[in-house]
């Protein structure tokens, strides 16, 4: 019984508590950042509508199960599908027109894509706020209840979140390294011109990458909705956290992002427990500044 645990036992449990909670949040960050960095690696696009797409997934899952009563599994699938559609729409309606435009100078296209996706994200955010208010929403967890791990009461859903994140990241690794399609994606990130010389349509590869991104962002969004809940206010912070994780890990480096996600996740959790929940994000941001000074390419960056 947790009620009768002594203060000393509680103090001994604290490191374990940080270990468990930090793992779940880090795994979630990792999943969110993986898709973000994949797109950058392959097509050089920094998608600043990332947070909006994650929130759209969570809110769609919430609306589907609470308003239309479809159950939490179907709700989760609808959430992921929403993110997939939103991601493809981002590519076709925002990114591709900018990349193909002849009126925008090539060297300015990156900044146009940044601005375009940022505005697109704000539009999605406002639509969500208009339709569903800016109150926070939570997705019904797929697994409920709690289990004790060595005395630490842990929601089953937290374990589920961590497992799904690890599984999906594992599947992504298999997809990229073990399938023909994945190898084409990898090749495009190394040498786009070479890929086209091999007779592969670059646009097709981009669509595949945006679709993979959409599914990853959708899963991350729905899981975040179950774990902590989201509101339209979460859009900015979610984009910012993915951005800082990816920059910390090295732009375009998937393994760098994974490491950075765990560094940031644990640093935040440690701060929240040992110092104060109010200062949660500060040390991670300071670390980002330090890394920018000492190693501007990030932990595992190539350039």
């Amino acid at each position, binding site marked *: 019984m947790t*009620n009768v645990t002594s203060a000393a036992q509680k103090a001994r449990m604290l490191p374990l508590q940080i270990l468990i909670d930090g793992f779940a949040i880090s795994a979630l960050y990792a999943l969110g950042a993986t898709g973000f960095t994949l797109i950058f690696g392959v097509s050089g696009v920094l998608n600043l509508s990332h947070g909006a797409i994650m929130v759209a997934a969570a809110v769609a899952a919430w609306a589907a199960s609470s308003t239309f009563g479809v159950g939490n599994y179907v709700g989760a699938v609808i959430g992921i599908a929403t993110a997939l559609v939103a991601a493809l729409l981002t590519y076709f309606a925002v990114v591709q027109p900018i990349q193909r435009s002849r009126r925008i100078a090539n060297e300015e296209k990156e900044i146009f894509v940044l601005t375009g996706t940022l505005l697109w994200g704000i539009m999605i955010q406002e639509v969500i706020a208009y339709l569903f208010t800016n109150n926070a929403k939570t997705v019904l967890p797929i697994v409920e209840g709690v289990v004790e791990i060595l005395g630490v*009461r842990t929601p089953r859903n937290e374990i589920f979140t961590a497992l799904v994140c690890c599984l999906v990241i594992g599947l992504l690794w298999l997809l990229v390294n073990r399938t023909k399609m994945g190898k084409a994606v990898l090749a495009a990130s190394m040498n786009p011109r070479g890929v086209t010389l091999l007779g592969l349509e670059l646009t097709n590869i981009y669509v595949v990458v945006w679709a993979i991104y959409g599914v990853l962002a959708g899963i991350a969004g729905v899981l975040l909705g179950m774990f902590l*809940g989201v509101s339209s206010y979460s859009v900015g912070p979610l984009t910012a956290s993915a951005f800082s994780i990816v920059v910390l890990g090295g732009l375009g480096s998937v393994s760098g992002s994974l490491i950075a996600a765990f560094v940031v996740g644990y640093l935040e959790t440690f701060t929240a427990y040992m110092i104060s929940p109010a200062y949660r994000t500060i040390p991670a941001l300071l670390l980002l500044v330090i890394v920018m000074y000492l190693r501007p390419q990030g932990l595992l960056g190539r350039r």
Partner: protein
Amino acid sequence: MKSAVIMSEDAAWTKPLDVGYKDCLPTVGLKVLDHIRFSPDTTDFTPIFNKIEASKPDVIITGISHVGVQPTVQWKNQQVPIPMFGISSQATNSTFGKDTNNASDGVLYQGVSGTGVAVTPKSVPFADAFKAKYGNYPSYAGYTAYDEVYYIAEAVKRAGSTDADKLVAALEKTDYEGTIGRVQFYGKDDAFTHGLKYGKGLITGLMLQWQDGQQVAVWPPEVAKSKIKFPAFIKVTAN
């Protein structure tokens, strides 16, 4: 119950509230073990609930408005065994149950009026008309704002002017039965200058609880529809 932890969001409105909590809780026999003020943009409440649980209070006294859904859902998901009681503005929204997937069950919150609660004969017709027009029942601000329009209009008529001093004099004489009770104000020399008069026959406020996805009045006894009840994970200590 013998002990409490105050959990408030760090905002201007909770500063005087927390002073009041700290002064008043000991007078009803609740020792304040800890006082936690957290940033209103907090999304993960796990460390906060862990810290509260470590000091083993009998109740968590809340002062939350900007946040509501997230701490409530995490309280339920993490099965924090301590009841929450106090101000939780979002819980006054009739959509709070849906927003939290009914994790709200067991939350006790203060209200001025509530769905289906006949605080005065005006309360229920107003709430029903509000729902017919806007699709959901009013939150706390719906009731107070509705009353304000009427007693301010009456005061303007009595004063025959919108001049500030004349209007204040007229408002001091307010005696208006609204949706939240009978509205009267303290005079300018009273301790609570121009504050609403509280008490039996005037405004008492209500305590409501989310039960099985519904907002239910549990205090005062005249309007209470049900007794307080908690979900299974809550361990209520004896009085």
